[in-house]
């Protein structure tokens, strides 16, 4: 997210828009800047700077206390959006996460288009802008995400990875702070290319344990996996229409196609869901969800298909114009649990 805390404040309090805004301690306190708006950054203010210093740089800046509840809410919302597309999500902070979209079928699996879709959905659903970096490993994706801030996207393709790192100043490396940067400069390392020029043994003399990490990333290699902090609880998709829809048959079609995508993802991620939920947002932004839980986990798309019209019947769809529909599956059970034969002595045909 771009200038996360500050953007949330500017969204919720339009009077802050276009003004240097600092979220953090009071100007006369020993507190630090937690976040600042892009307008404040022009004055050289950045996060982690003492508030007193920020005040000296820009006395007219507005100082506000952080409202963590509001940020958490946005954080939850964006993570929900991440889960719509990614099979693994590894949050780095409230507003940043690594996403693994290797197994995502949307947009023909194009990570770039998926990133754009996520950015679009974040904008639509939170009113905030986000920046994304797309690449073939975590190291490069993280750096890419900083390249086109705010509200931007940067892609580092596999064939460009090594060249990109070669030209990268060491200060931009993830994990390299001011202290390490100083040490690197002292050793003659200014860019990725400088590191790449050395052998692993030579690097070990400078970096010790971290040598192999630098050796690898200087070659654009980073084998770390995206580690999900939690298991997925639900899997859903939604779509906002360009014009509101009244026709119930069309809504059913849209829901069926969303459900189809969700069903395919369930298969890819080896998940068995017992609960299906539809979401309908009317033109007046009022929103309802309707769900049903089956006695067994869903194992075929037709099982989902036949319940969608029934669930939709319990909404005002067809009577009120609808701007958004969503479909999600939840109530996951393990494969073993789904095999009801564990409790039922009657074995089932493998249909």
């Amino acid at each position: 997210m771009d200038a996360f805390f500050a953007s949330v404040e500017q969204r919720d309090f339009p009077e802050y828009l276009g003004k240097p805004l600092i979220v953090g301690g009071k100007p006369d306190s020993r507190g630090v800047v937690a976040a600042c708006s892009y307008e404040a950054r022009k004055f050289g203010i950045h996060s982690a700077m003492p508030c007193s210093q920020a005040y000296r740089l820009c006395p007219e800046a507005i100082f506000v206390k952080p409202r963590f509840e509001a940020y958490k809410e946005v954080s939850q919302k964006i993570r929900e959006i991440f889960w719509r597309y990614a099979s693994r999500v590894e949050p780095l902070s409230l507003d940043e996460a690594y996403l693994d979209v290797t197994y995502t079928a949307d947009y023909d699996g194009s990570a770039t288009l998926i990133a754009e879709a996520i950015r679009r959905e974040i904008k639509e659903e939170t009113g905030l802008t986000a920046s994304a970096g797309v690449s073939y490993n975590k190291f490069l994706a993280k750096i890419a995400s900083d390249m086109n801030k705010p509200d931007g996207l940067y892609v580092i393709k596999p064939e460009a990875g090594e060249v990109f790192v070669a030209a990268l100043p060491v200060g931009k490396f993830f994990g390299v702070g001011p202290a390490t940067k100083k040490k690197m400069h002292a050793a003659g390392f200014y860019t990725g290319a400088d590191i790449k020029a050395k052998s692993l043994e030579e690097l070990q003399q400078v970096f010790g344990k971290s040598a192999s990490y630098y050796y690898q990333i200087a070659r654009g290699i980073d084998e770390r996996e995206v580690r999900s902090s939690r298991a997925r609880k639900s899997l859903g998709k939604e779509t906002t229409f360009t014009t509101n829809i009244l026709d119930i048959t069309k809504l059913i079609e849209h829901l069926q196609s969303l459900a189809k995508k969700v069903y395919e993802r369930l298969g890819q991620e080896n998940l068995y869901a017992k609960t299906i939920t539809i979401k309908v947002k009317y033109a007046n932004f009022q929103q309802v969800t309707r769900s049903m839980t089956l006695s067994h986990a869903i194992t075929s798309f037709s099982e989902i298909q036949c319940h969608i019209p029934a669930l939709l019947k319990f909404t005002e769809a067809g009577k009120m114009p609808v701007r958004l529909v969503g479909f999600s599956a939840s109530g996951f059970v393990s494969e073993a649990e789904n095999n009801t034969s564990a409790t039922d002595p009657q074995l089932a045909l493998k249909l």
Partner: protein
Amino acid sequence: MHLKISRAHLFHQIQRCQNIVEKRNTNPILVNILFETVSNGLKLTATDLQATYSSTQEAEILEPGKLTVDAKKIFEIVRELNPEQMIELKTKPNFLEIFSGGVKFEIAAKSADEFPSEPTDETDLSISLPGSELIRMIGSTSFAMSNDETRKYLTGSLFEVSPEHGIRIVTTDGHRMALSEFNIANLQQSASCILPKKAVMELKRLAEEAEENIQLSLGQHQVRIELNQQRFTSKVIDAKYPVYQDVIPQSNPHTALVDKNLLDQALRRSMVVSNDFTHDVKLIFTDNNLSIAAHNTEQEQAEEDMVIAYEGTTIEVGFNAKYMRDVLAAVSSQNVRIVLKDSLSPALLLEEGHELSKHVLMPMRI
């Protein structure tokens, strides 16, 4: 409308309509039957919007017209009228007058305008087959239809027509599967659809009174059944049927030939002390002998042996006795062939001498 019709003809028509009318229907017009005069007689129509039945019977038309009346009421009245007397029906504003001998009824009538029109023909393929074959096929498959509304596509019967197999009916509830087929010569096209239970039962009823062939037409969304002047149209279950072919065992190595009636009696006895819900019984196949054992949670038990034709390894396998008896009831031959692999694999049950029907039973853990 003014007409005269025989009591037998009218009663038969109303009875059929009664099967379609949904008693709990929320749409008031649907508890009614549509009466309308056509060139050769009186046509009655009933619908629940899923299924529509219409029938035309010979009548003496004195004045053409149409109206609707409450199905249950007209059924109860006509049932009580003298079978020997002709019935005269005559409309007057908002009412239908019914005369039979000295009896006169006046019942409320509603305009026919609100009544849904009969669905147009949307079928693609039509076949004609003897009622007796339909009865056999439905009889040997209908019991395996599922009652699980969450798996709607299993609550009906799959009707499949193809040049290779003729017509084939398949049912399964996930624990057992039934298949029955009838060869039809010179078929060019293929078609398949899932008939809802109500349509299957209506088809069976029509088949039971058919002296000639029944006309069966299948479409993507609709099935039509025609016999004489009767026509039944139903929506089909719009879903994909599971690939049932894969669950039919192809190479079970051990076959037992068992007297159907003796097995059925033994199972019926065993069920007295088997679990009331699962009806599980244990069958042990050894050389020319079948042992049947059952017990319940109160430690009550039953055991018996019967002579069968079997050579092979000893197999101990559990089955739901009720499922097995359903199959035996559909078997017309003296003996049933039970084709087994082991205690956890599906068993195939066949009639003696032919494979027009196939039944697959999944065992129970014992």
